[in-house]
Structures are given as structure tokens and as C-alpha cells.
């Protein structure tokens, strides 16, 4: 009996099931985004051409925009185009949407990546500290954790901006790079404050998850048993963390969504040209093609990250592949 093949099969089956769910969710998201934008009152052609345009001009533009076709057809066309990488044309910026989204996506991913890394470090530190034997330290960590969890990201961002860029001008107050200096150090300096602002809540949430799994682990006999095998402290720590990490990974996946939402505000406050700033911009300017594409992209990123977290979880924890024990 080739057991290895069977295990691989279970994993494959797990991943496929998740993929299907992801695709369904993505489809649902696309529908919501599309119809939400479509139902905004007002005439996009009017918004673009202005009040002193003629009816013919507006009709002509509507035809170019494809707004004359029935809604279902518009949706199908949009999906079809999107799958080919065509996201339409932004009428307020005069460029294809892909050209606008590309760099913005890169910046947001950079910020998100930095924030995620920070969040993981924060979670590991706080999670381990929270299980210490020294009671006062535990209380302090719990309090800090509660604070991080409930403080809204935009308020934290503002406070950080004021504290460390205005009052104490340690970090730059905005933007992604200083003019003329594109070095990694400069980039990092610009990313520090916004990344911290984004990382606090997810970090605290992950710390909580880690704390719970460590406690659960300590309630079993596993750790004393492993110690009785005479394993070195390093190996014991690896075992313990391996057991405690999988739930935290799932939390990280969910928290990416919260980070994406928070990026909306943080990018605005720190003037970082990312997807969040783009959303705000396009909403204010009523550029529907842009809003649509960006909203879809953000939601898709989130869904894909969730899938990745689930898959990573299944890789780490062999019990998950079998389903509920």
C-alpha cells in the first residue's frame, strides 16, 4: 500500500475543495462589486464630460463605455475582459486602468508585506511573553494587546505621524521615497510608521491566537513527554511552535483583509500612492471603472491570501488534511 500517495491525495483533495470555494467567493465578490458600482445614482458620462456637454456627446460616450448594453451583458463583458487582463479605461486619468493599478498594487504589496512581517514578529514576541510565569508582565502584555486590538488603524497612524514625524522629526512624514534618493534605507524609513500602524491590530490578534494554542499545548502532556526524551531546548521550542503555529497562520490570512482595509486610511494619511489611496481618489472623483477594478482586485487579493493561509495550514498540520477528527 503506497501510503505516501494516499496522503498526497488527501492534500490534493483538500486544496481542490478550497480552490472551488475560492472561485465561488471570487465570483460572488465580482458580482457584488459590479452591481454596487452600477447602482450608483448619476450618469458617468455626465460626470466625465461636464454639465455643458450635449446629449449626443453623452450618448456617444455612453456607447463607447458600453453602457448601452443590458446589465448582464455588461457584466459578462467585464468579466471576460478582466480575465484577459483588460480592466478598462479610466476616464478621469486618461489611461488604461492597468497602467494606473500596476504601480499602486506594487506599493501596497510592499507596505502590506512589511506590515505582515512586523505583525508576525509582534505576535511571536507578545504571544510568548503572554505565557510567562511572572504575573505582572502577563497583565501588561494583556493590556497592550487589548489596546492594539481596539485602536482603529487611522487613529494610530495619525498619532504615529504626529509623534514621530512632526513633534519628533525622526521619520519622514509622507510619501514613499525622498526625491532623488531611491535607496532601500530611504524606502524603509518611509515605510516604518505606516507599517507599524497597519501591523498593530493583526499582530495583537495573532498573539492572542498563539497564546491560546500555547496554553492548549501546555495543558496536554506533550511537552513533558518530549522533555523526557532528552531533547535539547532548541528542538523542544521548535516542536512547541510547530504545534502552536497553524491556527496563527489562519488568523494571519484573515488579518490581511483587515490590513487591506486599513491601508485605505493609512496610505491616505502617509500619502503613499497605493491601492488604498487609489480607492479613495477614485471614489471621490467618481471614476467608476477605476473603483470597480480596484475593489475587485483588493477583494481578490484577500480571497487568494485566505486560500494560501489555508493551504499553508494544511501543509503544517497533517491532521487538517483529513478533515475534522
Amino acid at each position: 500500500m503506497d501510503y505516501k500517495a494516499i496522503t498526497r491525495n488527501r492534500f490534493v483533495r483538500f486544496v481542490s475543495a478550497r480552490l472551488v470555494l475560492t472561485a465561488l467567493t471570487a465570483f460572488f465578490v465580482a458580482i457584488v462589486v459590479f452591481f454596487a458600482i452600477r447602482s450608483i445614482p448619476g450618469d458617468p458620462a455626465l460626470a466625465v464630460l461636464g454639465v455643458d456637454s450635449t446629449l449626443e456627446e453623452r450618448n456617444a460616450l455612453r456607447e463607447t463605455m458600453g453602457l448601452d448594453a443590458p446589465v448582464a451583458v455588461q457584466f459578462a463583458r467585464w468579466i471576460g475582459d478582466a480575465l484577459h487582463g483588460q480592466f478598462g479605461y479610466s476616464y478621469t486619468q486618461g489611461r488604461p486602468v492597468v497602467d494606473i493599478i500596476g504601480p499602486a498594487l506594487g506599493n501596497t504589496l510592499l507596505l502590506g508585506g512589511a506590515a505582515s512581517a512586523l505583525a508576525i514578529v509582534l505576535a511571536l514576541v507578545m504571544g510568548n511573553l503572554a505565557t510567562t510565569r511572572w504575573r505582572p508582565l502577563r497583565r501588561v502584555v494583556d493590556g497592550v494587546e487589548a489596546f492594539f486590538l481596539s485602536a482603529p488603524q487611522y487613529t494610530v497612524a495619525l498619532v504615529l505621524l504626529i509623534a514621530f514625524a512632526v513633534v519628533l522629526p525622526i521619520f519622514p512624514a509622507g510619501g514613499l521615497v525622498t526625491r532623488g534618493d531611491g535607496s532601500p534605507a530611504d524606502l524603509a524609513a518611509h515605510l516604518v510608521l505606516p507599517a507599524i500602524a497597519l501591523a498593530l491590530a493583526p499582530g495583537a490578534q495573532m498573539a492572542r491566537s498563539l497564546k491560546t494554542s500555547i496554553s492548549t499545548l501546555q495543558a496536554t502532556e506533550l511537552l513533558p513527554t518530549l522533555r523526557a526524551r532528552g531533547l535539547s531546548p532548541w528542538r523542544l521550542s521548535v516542536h512547541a511552535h510547530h504545534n502552536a503555529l497553524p491556527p496563527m497562520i489562519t488568523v494571519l490570512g484573515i488579518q490581511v483583509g483587515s490590513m487591506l482595509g486599513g491601508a485605505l486610511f493609512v496610505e491616505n494619511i502617509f500619502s503613499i500612492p497605493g491601492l488604498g489611496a487609489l480607492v479613495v481618489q477614485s471614489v471621490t472623483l467618481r471614476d467608476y471603472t477605476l473603483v470597480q477594478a480596484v475593489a475587485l482586485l483588493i477583494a481578490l487579493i484577500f480571497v487568494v491570501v485566505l486560500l494560501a493561509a489555508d493551504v499553508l495550514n494544511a501543509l503544517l498540520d497533517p491532521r487538517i488534511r483529513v478533515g475534522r477528527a
Partner: protein
Amino acid sequence: MTGATAARAAVIAPATPSARFRRRGLITRLPLRSRIALTLLVLLVALVLAAPVLPIPSPFAGDLGTRLLPFLSEGHPLGTDSQGRDMLSRLLFGTRTSLIAGVMPIVIATTLGLVIGTVAGLAGRVVNTLLMRGVDIMFAFPGVLLSLLLAITLGVGLGTLILALSLVWIAPVARIAETEVSRIRDLDYVTAARSSGAGYGAILGRQIVPVILPAVLAYATSLVGANVAIAGGLGFIGLGVPSPEPELGSILQEMQVAVFSNPSLALAPVVVILALSMLFPLVGDGLREAISGRGQDS
């Protein structure tokens, strides 16, 4: 009372102590930090409700000659905003708006979520899976994004803001309700009630709802904090209540211009939003601890 009805009454009476929701006992069991938070909240709400009769200038009266005055200026203890309006007054009335936008959606979402969750929890596997998968997909959607989209679609204004936010929070409440109902559905006293012939209505009313209500309400209280934060966020990017109506988020937006010149002015609305976002979860978590009778300390 005949033997049969006595037996039935005895079986229907809730067996777990947590079902007896004695409010007086509950408040005294709250941990200290939750009691402090609750007191502060009550004070804040009282202050906000009393705002119209307090001797403060109108939040709409702005004098461009007195823009961006710092703290402790003459007649303006918290300074003025970018249009010369008194900050203290703006904050008080803005908090009122934010509280409405914060609490109302949770009330709506809790009611709907409770219904959905309870139905899903009691129903058969098929209905349960259908409902909860739908809830999961909704849950997967980033809350901020969803409320953003809804706010755009429905247009600006307090009513549509409340509606948009309500939809966002139905999913978490439904999840909690379903978990709780599933947990107690198979407990002995419910099964006993079912087998003694009690109708679904009686079971629902006497056994299930009173038991899950405290936990759901405690959770909902914490959600108010997060909702206030999101409402403020929407106001921050201009999708909240339209100006000149004061709202904490839009006030924050307006004060961004003061960040470099007079940062303390910008901090005033920050402090209020922070306070609201943190006080509600403190109370909610405390309620949860008091109900379950277990501490958080590991």
C-alpha cells in the same frame, strides 16, 4: 398542577445557572476595568445627550477670523477647527452622531444575526450548511471594503450609513449565535424538553434564547467599538454624514490640515475615537467574563 404538567414545567425550566440572567448579579461580577469603562461610557453618553443644553457655542457657528485656535483659547477650551467652529461643541455633537452610527447598526445586525444564527443552529444539516456558507462568504469580505461599496451605492447620509454598516456585521453575529445554539442544542435539558413534547416555540423562548442571549449581547457590545471605528473611518474618507453635520471621522479629516501646524488640535478627535473604540470592547469583554464565570488569565 397535575403531575404531567408539573413534570413538563420542571423539564422546561432552564437547568444551567447562566440562564438566569439576573442583571444585578451580573454588574457586580464585572471585572474592575470593565466597571470603570462602563462608568466612563455612561458619563460620556450623558455629556453628549446634555450637549444641546450646555452653555457651548453651536457646532455650526464658524468665524473664519478665529480659525485653528489652540487649546485653552478664550471661549474655546478645545480650540477651533479649520472653519472657526468651536472644537468642544463639534466633538460633543459629533460624538452623538458617531454613537448613533455606531450603535444602531449593531442593534439591527444583532437582531438579524440572532435570527439567522438560531435558525441555522436548529435546522437540519442542509439548511445549516447553506446558511453558514453564505455567512462565511460574507464574513470573508473585508468589512471596510463592503461598507465602502455599500456607502457609495446608497449615497451619503446617516440613514444609508447605518444601513451599510448593519449589513457588514450580520455575519459575525450570526456565526456566534449559530455556534452557541449548536452547542446547547444537544445538551440534555433541551433534548429532554423536546422528548417531553414541548413545542419549538416554547423551547426557543424558554430554553435557547435566554441562554445564548447574554453571550451574544456581550459580543455585540464589543462590536460597537469596532463599528464606531469603521464609521469614523468612512467619515474620514468622506463617505459618512455630509458636512456641515459634525461627525468624528469627518472632523478628523478636516483637522488633518492642522497636523503640521497645530498637532494637538488634530489629537482631540483622535482621543475621542480611541476612547469609544476601546471602552466598548472593555465592557463587552467584561460582560463575557462575568457571564461565563471564567477569567481570561491563563
